[in-house]
């Protein structure tokens, strides 16, 4: 239709006004306009409908180094598109998330930036990694995540039809990611099938932190603003739906629903799903780790804690248990280790170096930064422990990028630097961290026995340090996986000793719930070891604990 200039400017004014309103208030606004000028109001209505499409169509095809390829989907606050950039080693794909122009203000923008900030702080093999962020030419923020080419959880289970064991293993990996989140004081708050992807390599990836929130020291979420409007009711816990609270227990609930949707005939998995999705938060699993422990029991044909102890059930489990090789335990080891190591290092750090590293996600840039700082430190004649710190950091980067040989080299350099320092508790702490790191790298190189010896040496040294104040919070999952892998290879003594240190670790942290889980784990593993071997002096002592 043709408009007079006066109509056109009226339309423009209405459009500008409507653009500032949240979606649900716009219809009402259009109705008010309709009372003034029906024809112009329907013009406005059409424009408001076309707005997101128009925005997508006219968006620049280039953001920073990223070239847009195609649309992947529409998230709560904006569009997610596939993009690529050139790197020295070839093209890199990413999923770029761009805030919708309507939301680029006030609390929405804050929410978007919060998502970006949360992603940036996370590093876990089962969480889609943060790659880049920036402002577009109009000043609107965008960020880029690892592109996961895969199937959503429900599509995967429906079309690929995995065995129930495979489902349980994937689910355990997912639980590891959620446990990592919770230990980082973050609640995902929107776990549902479309946010859990299985990539081409068969690995689970958790994504979309658009509803995620940070927790206070007392475990309550800080920001309750409008996330309630954004949640997906079918998968949300009762307390989220009522808007009363959102805690790690809310994620456990959604995980329970997710597991129930794909547990098939398995009574064990169903029991686990039921326990996780109780209406009353306190009746659910106390943590994602506890839930993971039960899934592990299922995988090992051990009694599942969620089912009532019943002699016949236990006997049946025991009989099946020894028929199936426990070899699969090793494969989760590397993933678990990476998560722990990165987080332990990160949590401990508060230096500027750290923020440089995390902010400069481009590896070549980060390395250059580290080397520059390293050079500066050498000039300032920094203590050797500081130099070791730099080598440790380099090693960490290599390890995360699956270059264990380079990592080992850096760790060696760190060791040399520390050895030259005068003895002190600080030096010992550094050595503990180095030993644990070496253990991790060795595990990655599949040298399990050497890895175990490093880890055990690390803990022995740890116990001699007066304040023992070293970040060990994240290592439980790794230690359990390492112990499992060792026991599966017949290295009973080392495996059990590592489980023993895992108990000592949580005792020292003061986490009695996890300590109990760890103690049960230790006892359960001791029970699987043949009597003749267990009667060796060392094991008897450890198992009696």
């Amino acid at each position, binding site marked *: 239709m043709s408009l007079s*200039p006066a109509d056109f400017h009226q339309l*423009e004014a209405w459009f500008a006004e409507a653009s500032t309103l949240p979606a649900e208030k716009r219809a009402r606004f259009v109705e008010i306009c309709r009372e003034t000028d029906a024809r112009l109001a329907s013009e406005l209505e059409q424009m408001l409908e*076309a707005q997101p*499409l128009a925005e*997508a169509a006219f968006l620049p095809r280039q953001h920073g180094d990223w070239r*847009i390829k195609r649309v992947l989907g529409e998230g709560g606050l904006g569009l997610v598109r596939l993009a690529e950039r050139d790197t020295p080693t070839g093209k890199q794909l990413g999923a770029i998330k761009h805030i919708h122009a309507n939301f680029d203000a006030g609390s929405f923008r804050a929410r978007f930036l919060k998502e970006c900030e949360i992603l940036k702080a996370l590093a876990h093999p089962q969480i889609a990694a943060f790659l880049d962020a920036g402002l577009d030419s109009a000043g609107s923020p965008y960020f880029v995540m690892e592109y996961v080419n895969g199937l959503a959880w429900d599509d995967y289970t429906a079309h690929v039809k995995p065995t129930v064991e495979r489902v349980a293993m994937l689910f355990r990996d997912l639980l590891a990611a959620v446990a990592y989140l919770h230990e980082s004081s973050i609640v995902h708050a929107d776990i549902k099938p479309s946010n859990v992807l299985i990539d081409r390599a068969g690995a689970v990836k958790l994504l979309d932190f658009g509803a995620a929130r940070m927790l206070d020291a007392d475990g309550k979420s800080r920001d309750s603003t409008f996330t309630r409007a954004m949640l997906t009711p079918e998968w949300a816990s009762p307390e989220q739906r009522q808007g009363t609270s959102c805690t790690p227990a809310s994620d456990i609930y959604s995980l329970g629903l997710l597991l129930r949707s794909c547990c098939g005939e398995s009574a064990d998995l169903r029991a686990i799903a039921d326990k996780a999705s109780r209406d009353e938060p306190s009746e659910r699993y106390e943590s994602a780790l506890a839930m993971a422990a039960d899934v592990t029991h299922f995988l090992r044909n051990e009694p599942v804690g969620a089912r009532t102890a019943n002699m016949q059930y236990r006997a049946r489990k025991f009989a099946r248990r020894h028929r199936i090789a426990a070899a699969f335990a090793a494969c989760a080891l590397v993933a678990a280790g990476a998560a722990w190591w990165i987080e332990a290092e990160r949590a401990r750090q508060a230096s500027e170096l750290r923020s440089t590293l995390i902010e400069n996600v481009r590896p070549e840039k980060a390395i250059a930064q580290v080397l520059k700082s390293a050079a500066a430190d050498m000039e300032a004649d920094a203590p050797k422990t500081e130099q070791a710190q730099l080598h440790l950091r380099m090693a960490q980067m290599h390890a995360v990028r699956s270059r264990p040989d380079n990592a080992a080299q850096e760790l060696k350099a760190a060791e040399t630097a520390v050895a030259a320092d005068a003895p002190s508790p600080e030096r010992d702490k550094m050595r503990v961290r180095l030993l644990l790191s070496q253990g991790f790298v060795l595990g990655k190189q599949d040298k399990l026995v050497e890895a175990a010896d490093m880890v055990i040496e690390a803990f022995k040294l740890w116990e001699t340090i007066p304040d023992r104040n070293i970040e060990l919070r994240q290592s439980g999952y790794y230690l359990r996986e390492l112990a499992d892998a060792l026991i599966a290879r017949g290295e009973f003594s080392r495996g059990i000793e590592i489980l023993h240190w895992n108990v000592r670790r949580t005792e020292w942290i003061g986490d009695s719930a996890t300590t109990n889980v760890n103690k049960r784990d230790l006892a359960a593993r001791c029970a699987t070891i043949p009597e003749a071997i267990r009667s060796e002096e060392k094991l008897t002592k450890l198992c009696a604990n």
Partner: protein
Amino acid sequence: MEIDVQELYAELRRIAALHFRRAGRQLTLQPTVIVNEAYIRMQGKDWRSKTHYLATASRVMRNVVVDYARTRLSAKRGAGGKQITLSFAENAAAPPGLSAIDVIALERALDELEALDARKARVVELRWYGGLEVEEIAGVLDTSPATVKRDWEFSRTWLYKQLSCP
């Protein structure tokens, strides 16, 4: 120093022709890419400023693209000739036929916009054909970045609507 528009025009045509040849049968153009390429090639000449250059180039680019589209259309008319299109950010949700902008349809809508509000049409020209940043456009048009942002937001929606339901 004034920009030699003839020279600029010739350069833009050369680069655009190259892009068309490279694009083969697809015939989609990214005007901003061409303008930027021209800018790089013509650097070293004494342009008053990059913005000044780009502002002129965006006007010329618009003419280059539209001329191309019209020539093509008349040459191929009746033989199922292809439309010249500008690359749209690919969007699965865009109406069919709008996955790329039909240059001539856009030109018609842009003319209409120009008649109603000349500044808005200029914003589109600078942004879409010239690839200028909001701040730069504000400088060229001697207005505030907020106004440019608002103009752009409205204009692109209005144009999109004109293109999708003519």
